[in-house]
């Protein structure tokens, strides 16, 4: 009897999605004042669709954008993460980001095991995405694509993590601007007409220190029992406003000052629409800041190993718009805050290129672990284009003056014009330490067609990626993902004692030996001129007829002489 009931339940679950396809939209804005006075605003829009996109039968879309849904179904995508970023998140000053992305465009995709030709699907996918987002993702090819083995694990539901189904590429040169934002906004069910997306005004968003927009698609469990799959689309946008300099030295800000708009309503399609403001007390002192209007509730959470307090404005609660028609969240500091003691994040990194001349150079990466007593491992992923030839024997990892042997190394050498270098290492970072990783390289000579239009600007080397489980100072509770705020729930938390962090270092700009591109033309011009001059005199020699010149009346000198002779009374010449 019990068995039968289970079978019936399973059948019901299988038949269920056809009838009652539910899709839910949640929108959220997190405003967090950064230690140095800037303000970070993180928008997250999450569409959850209780339907199995992969089965191919689904073709009727409601909240989920059709363009992306068809893409996922047609190309066998299991997980897709695309980020377009302008600027660099300064981890040391701004702290751990909720979601960091490398400068430029970053795309990483897990394909379904049913996809036979992953490279072809990857090429097709990047071309289509390039069309959807008006970005030059079509420049993703085998020379900048890698298959990391350890750094990028699926964030969603996955059975088996065969890394041959993963592709990762970064285009550090990509410039992100309005034309990328518009298609991104178009994917939102409410567009930019209602809800939090009203604030997304391009001229303000790109007038900022950091702008990063991303799309994450992944399958997730439909419920706790996880018998069926739902698809989740997260659209995130992070922007950092320099309120300190634009606000005449004051660190106070308001929604209107930052976005030149205020919120008037929630998106009518959203089942949740909230604004979170980080009002965590700094340095265990009394609250220094004041937010107006009074929040509807206060939410406490442990985020990235730190206890934080958030003022919450629920746009769906009718009491919020009772007093005034629009919501303009304002934050005022009661006392000028001393910005001398910035809390340093537990993990941060820095990278630079050194050396002189145009033949060899050295890439150095410094990784800081500022945790007072805990050591933890970090996975470092380096992707270096083929025209910088890495000398792996020069790889040195030094911590506290001693050599630090990585416990795992995966190195895939580059092939000229085919694939980049891939270096992945698992490095143990002792407590309170700095680890320096250096590797030398030689610059290759490119063919003259391979140079970019502005070769003297230099060539970008994409950011290296640090993934780590950072031990938390305070214990974290396991929370229900569905009910916690969105900004805490993209990365899966493993257990209560540590949290996942992914950091990107600075992209590098390397000068390659660059020829003088006008040289061939100069040579042509010069030789042509010489040839033409020779030809001219030959031509003259050959075509002129020569005849004896009859004596004429003479030149100027003769006439002058004659005038003088006249005066002297001597007969002229």
């Amino acid at each position: 009897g019990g068995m039968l009931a289970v079978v019936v339940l399973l059948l019901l679950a299988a038949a269920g999605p056809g009838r009652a396809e539910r899709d839910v939209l949640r929108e959220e804005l997190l405003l967090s004042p950064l230690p140095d006075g800037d303000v970070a605003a993180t928008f997250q829009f999450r569409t959850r669709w209780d339907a199995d996109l992969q089965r191919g039968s689904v073709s009727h879309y409601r909240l989920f954008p059709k363009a992306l849904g068809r893409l996922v179904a047609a190309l066998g995508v299991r997980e897709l993460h695309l980020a377009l970023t302008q600027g660099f998140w300064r981890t040391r000053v701004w702290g751990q980001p909720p979601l960091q992305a490398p400068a430029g465009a970053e795309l990483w995709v897990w394909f379904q095991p049913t996809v036979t030709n992953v490279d072809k699907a990857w090429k097709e996918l990047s071309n289509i995405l390039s069309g959807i987002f008006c970005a030059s993702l079509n420049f993703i090819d085998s020379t900048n694509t890698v298959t990391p083995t350890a750094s990028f694990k699926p964030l969603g539901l996955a059975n088996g993590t065969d890394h041959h189904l993963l592709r990762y590429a970064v285009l550090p040169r990509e410039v992100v601007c309005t034309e990328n934002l518009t298609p991104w906004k178009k994917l939102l069910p409410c567009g930019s007409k209602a809800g939090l997306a009203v604030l997304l005004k391009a001229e303000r968003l790109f007038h900022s220190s950091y702008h990063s927009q991303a799309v994450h698609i992944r399958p997730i469990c439909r419920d706790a029992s996880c018998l069926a799959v739902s698809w989740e689309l997260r659209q995130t946008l992070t922007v950092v406003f320099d309120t300190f300099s634009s606000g005449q030295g004051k660190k106070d800000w308001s929604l209107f000052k930052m976005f030149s708009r205020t919120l008037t309503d929630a998106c009518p399609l959203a089942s949740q629409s909230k604004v979170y403001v980080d009002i965590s007390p700094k340095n265990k002192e009394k609250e220094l800041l004041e937010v107006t209007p009074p929040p509807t509730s206060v939410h406490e959470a442990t985020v990235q190993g730190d206890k934080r307090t958030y003022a919450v404005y629920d746009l769906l609660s009718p009491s919020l718009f009772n007093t005034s028609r629009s919501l303009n969240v304002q934050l005022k500091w009661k006392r000028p805050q001393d910005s001398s003691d910035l809390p340093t994040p537990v993990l941060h990194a820095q990278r630079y290129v050194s050396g002189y001349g145009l033949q060899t150079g050295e890439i150095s990466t410094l990784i800081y672990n500022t945790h007072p007593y805990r050591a933890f491992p970090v996975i470092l992923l380096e992707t270096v284009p083929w025209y910088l030839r890495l000398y792996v024997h020069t790889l040195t990892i030094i911590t506290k003056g001693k050599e630090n042997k990585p416990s795992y190394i995966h190195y895939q050498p580059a092939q000229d014009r085919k694939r980049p270098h891939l270096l992945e290492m698992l490095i143990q970072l002792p407590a309170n330490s700095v680890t320096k990783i250096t590797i030398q390289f030689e610059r290759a000579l490119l063919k003259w067609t391979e140079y970019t239009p502005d070769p003297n600007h230099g060539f970008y080397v994409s950011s290296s990626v640090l993934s780590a489980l950072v031990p938390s100072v305070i214990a974290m509770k396991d929370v229900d993902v569905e009910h916690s705020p969105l900004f805490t729930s993209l990365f899966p938390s493993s257990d209560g004692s540590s949290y996942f962090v992914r950091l990107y270092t600075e992209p590098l700009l390397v000068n390659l030996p660059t020829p003088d591109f006008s040289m061939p033309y100069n040579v042509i011009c010069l030789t042509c001129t010489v040839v033409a001059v020779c030809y001219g005199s030959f031509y003259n020699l050959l075509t002129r007829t020569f005849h004896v010149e009859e004596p004429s009346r003479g030149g100027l000198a003769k006439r002058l002489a004659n005038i003088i002779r006249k005066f002297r009374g001597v007969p002229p010449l």
Partner: protein
Amino acid sequence: QFQLTVPVAVVFAPGSVPGDLPRPLPFRDVQEMELSVNLRTTVTSRYETIYRSTTAEEEAALGAATAREADAALHLLQDTSLGSLTIYVVPETSSLLPQGISVYVGKHRSALVRAGGGLATLRTRLQQLTQVMSFTASSITAALSDRVPDGQLGPAARRHLKSSLGYEITFSLLNPDPKSHTVEWDIEEAVNRYVQPVLDKLSLVANFSVDSQILYYAVLGVTPRFDKESSSFLLSAHSLPHVINPVEARLGSSAASLYPVLNFLLYVPERSHSPLYIQDKEGAPVSTNAFHSPRWGGIMVYNVEAPSSPQASLPLHVDVDMVRVMEVFLAQLRLLFGLSREELPHEFLLERPGNEGLADWELDRLLWAHTVENIATVSTTLTSLAQLLDKIGNIVIKDDVASEVYRAVASAQSAMAELAVGHLHSAFQASKEAVTSSERAFFDPSLLHLLYFPDDQKFAIYIPLFLPMAVPILLSLAKIVRETRQHKKEPTKMD
């Protein structure tokens, strides 16, 4: 240079044979008609007719009570190859056809014609009938519209979709005002019930994929005018062209395929603009409240009934009546495929296609037109490819491109041959292959003409050589000219 052959069988029921037949039954007859599209293209249509009398089974089938039953019974007896027609001539007094109707076109590839009036009237009727059921001059010119000089095409010819290997049909529900309306439509059910049968039938012509989406805050590009008399909003016909553009940006063409997209939009006007009616050119409201855009799709405005009490809570829940909507969309779909019923003499009766939405002979019409269009497309593609190759002398033709070109030519020729014999199905298949091959050859990335260095730029680089060399030559030429002129002048001076 097209020759299209339609096999026609004319079957005489007992008592319907006209007295003035030239020969005793059965016999064969061929009629040809010529149509010139432009100076170089002519289409010859050839009707190969067999005249015979009914067999015993056919006679029994014709004994049915109504034309519809007879049609169904006769369908089992016919040869069912695409493109062939069977016409049954029934006695003048037959009760099969209703009063006043002398031609009945069935759901399949047959028709019933009432005898009477001798051979001449029968001939003209047969001619009309075969044209209705296969192709007319206008349907062929529409298919060859690329070659017809401008201004000679009617508006109907421009409406037709281009022939393609596949089409994507997208149904979009536009809800510009989600705050006051929650609109729901059971599109999945409606597609399965109404659209899929038609597409199954059309699957012979092309691949179809159907999807749907709901777009919020998508508004039309025109603000409708308020009409005080009817207290409604009106969209006049001349403003309709401006309606689509802002919506189009939201529709999102499918990036994943290259097939043309047919858009069908259901627009639920916002509360402040409803009810909304479309006016035709004379100012009368359009009964379906819908319009279509040639080669693009159709739009239907679906008005939400105002709530009985003004205090009704917002948002208002709206369930779309899919029968009404699908009726309009299917009619538009037929229009876009050029399957609209043409003006026919009043004695013609067409059977309603029923659940399938499409009669067999209508499918044939589509196939005739698409085959001709495909062949024309192939020849245009290959001609422009040849022009490109003529322009760039040093272009590299890879072997696979060459073989695609050969295959396209061979397929196009075999399609022409099959058309001339009257095998519509194999002709269409061959023409499809020809299109695929020719497109593949034409769009091969190695044939991008930007890849090749243009000759005029090579010349420009060597200007520093040519210019100084040209100067003495030109100078001496000028000198020669001057001298010859002086030579001519001198003799006149002597006189």
